């Protein structure tokens, strides 16, 4: 049985200056309640790892608009003018990663790898900040693991053992991030009893989840 946590305990788990992986693709699959709690708190100076910086009024975009993010690792900031503005003015640090590379780096940490060799980015500016390793005469960039203190996931359904089911395109980065953070917290649309989900249909095994958010706690 996983601990159900309410807003107060949740905020204790995400101190200022901590690093947060946040599921979602343009806010689809982002745990908006958890983001909202951080937004309404005095917590700040977060490092965020997320596919994109969303929109100013959605997902992690809200944290950026509220100037709570010091650095973001992401693949795309084009939908949030506030990220671009803060980036050009030096208020926020942005490390742009190809989307597949971002996924591989998160997975690399989660799977205990020292890195992966990818052809993506060879011959581009990315080469400047990466080691180039040749295998059988072909060049690859060495991409190193990415971790976070806390992962904030959004699931369609969680059972009380932490097993998760995602829905439609809201799955995206959520299952990867479940392996790559010290503390994994899930916001689920439905919380069901252990045994309610066919174990073949679990998308994230419960052993990877630490806490399930519940407004009733």
């Amino acid at each position, binding site marked *: 049985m996983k601990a159900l946590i309410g807003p107060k305990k949740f905020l204790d788990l995400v101190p200022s200056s901590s690093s947060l992986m946040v599921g979602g*693709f*343009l806010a*689809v699959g982002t745990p908006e309640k958890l983001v909202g709690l951080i937004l309404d708190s005095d917590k700040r100076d977060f490092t965020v790892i997320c596919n994109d910086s969303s929109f100013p009024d959605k997902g992690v975009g809200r944290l950026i608009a509220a100037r709570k993010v010091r650095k973001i690792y992401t693949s795309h900031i084009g939908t949030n003018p506030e990220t671009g503005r803060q980036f*050009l003015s030096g208020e926020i640090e*942005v490390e742009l990663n190809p*989307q597949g590379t971002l996924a591989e780096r998160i997975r690399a940490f989660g799977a205990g790898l020292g890195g992966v060799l990818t052809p993506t980015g060879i011959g581009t500016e990315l080469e400047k900040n990466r080691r180039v390793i040749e295998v059988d005469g072909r060049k690859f960039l060495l991409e190193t693991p990415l971790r976070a203190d806390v992962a904030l996931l959004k699931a369609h359904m969680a059972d009380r053992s932490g097993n998760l089911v995602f829905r439609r*395109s809201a799955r995206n980065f959520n299952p990867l991030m479940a392996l790559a953070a010290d503390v994994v917290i899930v916001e689920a649309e439905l919380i069901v009893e252990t045994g309610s989900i066919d174990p073949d249909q679990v998308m994230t095994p419960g052993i990877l989840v630490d806490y399930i958010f519940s407004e009733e706690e």
Partner: protein
Amino acid sequence: MSIAPERERIARRIARIFSNGDVVNLGIGMPTMVGNYLPEGVSIILHSENGFTGLGPTPAPGSEDPDLTNAGAQPVTILPGGAFFDSLVSFSIIRGGHLDYTVLGALEVDQEGNLANYMIPGKFVPGMGGAMDLTVGARKVVIATEHCNKNGDPKVLKRCSLPLTATREVDIIVTELAYMEVTPEGLVLKEIFEGSTVEAVTRATGAELIIPDEVGRFS
């Protein structure tokens, strides 16, 4: 949704590239339109990099599913035979060579097959999203672009000047004026818009064009 005739022409020509059953990723913007112009009898499977195959049309108003969007966050549908997966699998499909085609836009593209489409330093830095992976990973890379930018300067160049998305990965470039293929010998002008001339196309192009004896026409 109205569409400029030049953009429709590009989308229509690109749509004729595919064979039945091809798996294709269409970038945001003009490439997305390509799906509307498939010839009779040709059905392709669209891959959406946010996590599924079988991307279908926009849902009827009121029946949108907030959990089901395309890579541009617009509500879409999934067709029978489609499948959802996470971002890791989505990009394994992309980088592992499991897409037949990707269609992407360009800021600049050049005769060596280099592509620049993700940033203008100091001005416009949206990020590469999935574009670098798509360009490197898809079996064939098709560029959909206006022949010239808003200032009238050519976008098809000898050599890109902006930061590159990928090197030597582009296979086909389609503009409202020309259908070009990147070959080991250089950039070949395979077809021109029926309302234009080889001379006019050559003049509007910043790249060295190889002109075969027979240049086709498209409309």
